[in-house]
């Protein structure tokens, strides 16, 4: 029987959640025996090679590209897991949510103290920003959540191993953190 497939992606976040996933240390060897990685920054596979069992989302939904990636993950993954405060709440990037997008862009590219001859980028290759950063479960259906900034490695391990064993994941008290 083929191993279950896991895909991961990173959106408006800091990659800390991916680092914390790697922080399961020697259990990584066990994980690699349990699963194959599909599309993920870990193996640098850019496109889905087929249906995936577990999709892991880090970061909030901040741009048109994030939105499309989220939709794509929902389409290709049987189970979606949102990980980290940015995916669950918008997190640090969502600090911009209280400021209108136009003001944010002007502050960054036109009025900032270190800006010289600023211009707001408008290249077709650059994804358009959304009006605010959305928690991912406000955009697509999410099946499981792992909070934390980043989630403790143990929380990753508890949820992943439960899902792979076909059980309902439970995060223990000490591994449930929002910070």
């Amino acid at each position: 029987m083929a191993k279950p497939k896991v895909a991961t992606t990173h959106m408006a976040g800091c990659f800390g959640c991916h680092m914390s996933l790697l922080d399961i240390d020697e259990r990584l060897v066990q994980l690699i025996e349990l699963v194959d990685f599909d599309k993920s920054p870990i193996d640098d596979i850019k496109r889905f090679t087929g249906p995936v069992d577990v999709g892991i989302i880090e970061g909030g939904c901040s741009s048109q590209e994030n939105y499309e990636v989220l939709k794509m993950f929902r389409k290709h993954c049987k189970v979606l897991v949102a990980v980290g405060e940015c995916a669950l709440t918008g997190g640090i990037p969502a600090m911009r949510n209280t400021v209108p997008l136009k003001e944010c862009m002007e502050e960054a590219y036109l009025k900032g103290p270190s800006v010289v001859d600023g211009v707001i980028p408008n290249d077709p290759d650059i994804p358009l920003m959304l009006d605010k950063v959305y928690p991912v479960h406000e955009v697509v259906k999410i099946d499981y959540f792992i909070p934390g900034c980043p989630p403790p490695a143990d929380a990753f391990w508890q949820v992943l191993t439960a899902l792979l064993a076909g059980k309902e994941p439970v995060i223990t008290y000490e591994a449930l953190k929002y910070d």
Partner: protein
Amino acid sequence: MSNGKITIYVDDVEVTTEAGKTIMEACDAVGIYIPRLCYHKDLVPAGHCRVCTVKVNGKPTNACTFPVQEGLVVENDTDELKEFRRHVIEMLFVEGNHVCPYCEKQGNCELQALAYRFGMLAPTYPYLYPKIEVDATHPDVYIDRNRCVLCGRCVRASRDLDGKSVFGFVGRGKGKRIAVNAEHSLSETQLQAADRAAEICPTGSIVVKRTGYRVPYGKRLYDKEPIGSDIEAKAKG
């Protein structure tokens, strides 16, 4: 009801207490934890937050304000009430800007600890992301209303313990907020860092400056044991 003793029944457990106590005081004394947020043992109970809601003879009631009476039947640790309390906490999370990753109260925050205890992963309500200013004008204390849950502990502590009435409520409904007793800002008030009102906030809304992040991750108040464990320990003796 002889010799002033009163018996109430909490989740079918017989609790003996005395007249004049509230349901919460009676339960605390015997190691039954009723979750609470706006309640503080040194303050008059206010019944603001509704986290301590129990059912008394079938009717939802604040445990922190309701006086015991002979034969009361109280529901506390039921699935229905746990669900209700989790929703109260979730609503507090989405209506403010509670960003735990950079909050100075992280690990010691009662709002966060209650959410942990209730097993909240992500709130089921949409985030409102209100725009709220921080008042950091005072040299030793700041008030960040992004994290305020309107529990009114600061109001009661400043009035009743410090005798200063630095804080008060203004507005109503979703426009309700904590105001300071001054023309403009906190710096114009009598508040001092040593005041009870400066340390009694359950969240990171009123914080004494230069005290944050002192306790390392893993050793903070609610890192190992859920909030309420100290009360429940009494029952285990």
